């Protein structure tokens, strides 16, 4: 029963990823089309721009699919480690690899005192997992096992592929929209208006221009909302899968409480990589994190979902601080 539901989850993830990617590509194409029409003044320009937008987005997507993990790791300042440098970390990863029945990923260390971790790669055969030195210092073995179980669940559930590819497409939409809006407001529109005054198609041109502007404002938001909704959902799923692997909800629970009580900020994380981490590394966002624009659910919600697995009553936020032993 549990196994079957796990396979259901993976196939649901595959389906979601496919739908998401399709939706984002359609948005990208639509945006390209209206912008092209608005800028060049006729629908054929729109078709060319659609091709260009999807082509470039696709190219970036493919590039990320194969090289994105290396990029993310180097941006985060992660260094690959072996058993002689971090024996316990490698041991814990090995344990979780056996439990998840996936190949051993490459293991990286980020020299930062803020406790956090992420996984990346295109599939379980090409996966990498990175943790900060702070995580190793502050968590005990069971807690570390919970975090690694969570990250390897992202690997096993194919969340890593989703976050890589869709992240790039959402980025492409944002860049294209941004480009167009700047172009419109900072004088780019002048040229097309001069041309229109001669051709006489001004009415339709203005309408399509307005549509393009509206779309340029909405498309980045819509694509981002979809991405974030799925991202938050997967955090819960990865927590539950981690418990399925470790058979120990308390380690993960304590790890979540400890990390949420930790005041340090992860310096190497940015808006481009924040959604990949174990907990949101940008603390300001964490404060209002049940909001639509957050990449992770609030930690207290994650802890309480774990507690429902073990049939324990939910905690208030002050009790969570006690659990972490940090107060």
């Amino acid at each position, binding site marked *: *029963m*549990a*196994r079957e*539901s*796990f396979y259901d*989850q993976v196939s*649901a993830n595959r389906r979601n990823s496919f739908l998401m990617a399709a939706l984002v590509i359609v948005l990208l194409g639509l945006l390209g089309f209206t912008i092209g029409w608005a800028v060049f003044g006729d629908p054929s320009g729109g078709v060319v721009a659609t091709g260009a937008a999807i082509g470039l987005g696709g190219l970036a997507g493919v590039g990320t699919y194969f090289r994105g993990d290396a990029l993310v790791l180097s941006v985060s300042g992660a260094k690959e480690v072996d058993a002689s440098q971090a*024996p*316990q970390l490698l*041991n*814990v990863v*090995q*344990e*979780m690899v*056996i*439990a998840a*029945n996936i190949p051993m990923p490459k293991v990286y260390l980020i020299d930062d005192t803020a406790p956090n971790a992420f996984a990346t790669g295109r599939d379980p055969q090409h996966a990498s997992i990175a943790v900060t030195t702070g995580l190793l210092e502050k968590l005990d*073995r069971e807690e570390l*096992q919970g975090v690694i179980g969570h990250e390897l669940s992202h690997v096993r559930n194919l969340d890593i592929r989703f976050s890589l590819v869709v992240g790039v497409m959402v980025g492409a939409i944002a860049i294209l929209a941004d480009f167009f809006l700047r172009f419109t407001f900072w004088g780019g529109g002048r040229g097309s208006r001069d041309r229109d005054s001669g051709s006489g198609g001004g009415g339709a041109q203005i309408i399509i221009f307005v549509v393009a502007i509206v779309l340029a404002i909405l498309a980045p938001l819509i694509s981002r909302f979809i991405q974030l*909704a799925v991202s*938050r*959902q997967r955090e*819960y*799923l990865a927590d*539950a*899968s981690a*418990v*399925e*692997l470790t*058979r*120990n*909800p308390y380690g993960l629970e304590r790890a979540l409480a400890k990390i949420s009580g930790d005041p340090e900020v992860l310096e190497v994380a940015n808006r481009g990589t924040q959604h990949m981490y174990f907990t949101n590394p940008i603390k300001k966002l964490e404060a209002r994190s049940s909001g639509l624009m957050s990449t992770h*659910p609030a930690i207290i*919600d994650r802890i309480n*979902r774990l507690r*429902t*697995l*073990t049939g324990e009553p939910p905690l208030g936020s002050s009790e969570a601080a006690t659990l972490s032993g940090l107060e």
Partner: protein
Amino acid sequence: MELPLIIIIAVVVLLVVFVVGIYNSLVQKRLRIDEALAQIEVQLKRRHDLIPNLVNAVKGYMGFEQKVLTDVTNARAAAVSAGAQGPVQQAAAENMLTGTLRSLFAVVENYPELKANQNVLELQEQLTTTENQISFSRQHYNATVLDYNTAIATLPNMLLAGPLGFAKREFFDAEPEAANVPNVDLSLS
């Protein structure tokens, strides 16, 4: 060629393909069990190799609790010899060994100089990870056995499993916590 003959040949060919398909899938499932078992064997062997080192490392420090050490040594010897007696006896002997190791580590906690000893710490970490790997490998082994046992007990494989010599396999003793498989909540929030 006449039509009835063609039909008969077609049916025979289909039957052969069908039987070969079932046979191959069952062989594959059985191989997965053997592979999972081999994985456990490797880790058990590693644990057996680590224990004498640990016993030697702590022997000098421990005054009164020599019995704990002899328990560990005896349990190790029993576990090594139980390896040949099949998975059930082996699991029992290994669980025994796990118990004695736990009490050894509990005793180590009372000796500050042992807790600070780098060699002992490393051995302790090695044994902990090996023990965890053994228990996760058993989870995996049980999953492969379940898969195989289900395959040979359901139609249509059931009809062929007996004649082709596919017998039911034993599980490792379920550990108590294995019963608590979590329910995954997938509702959107």
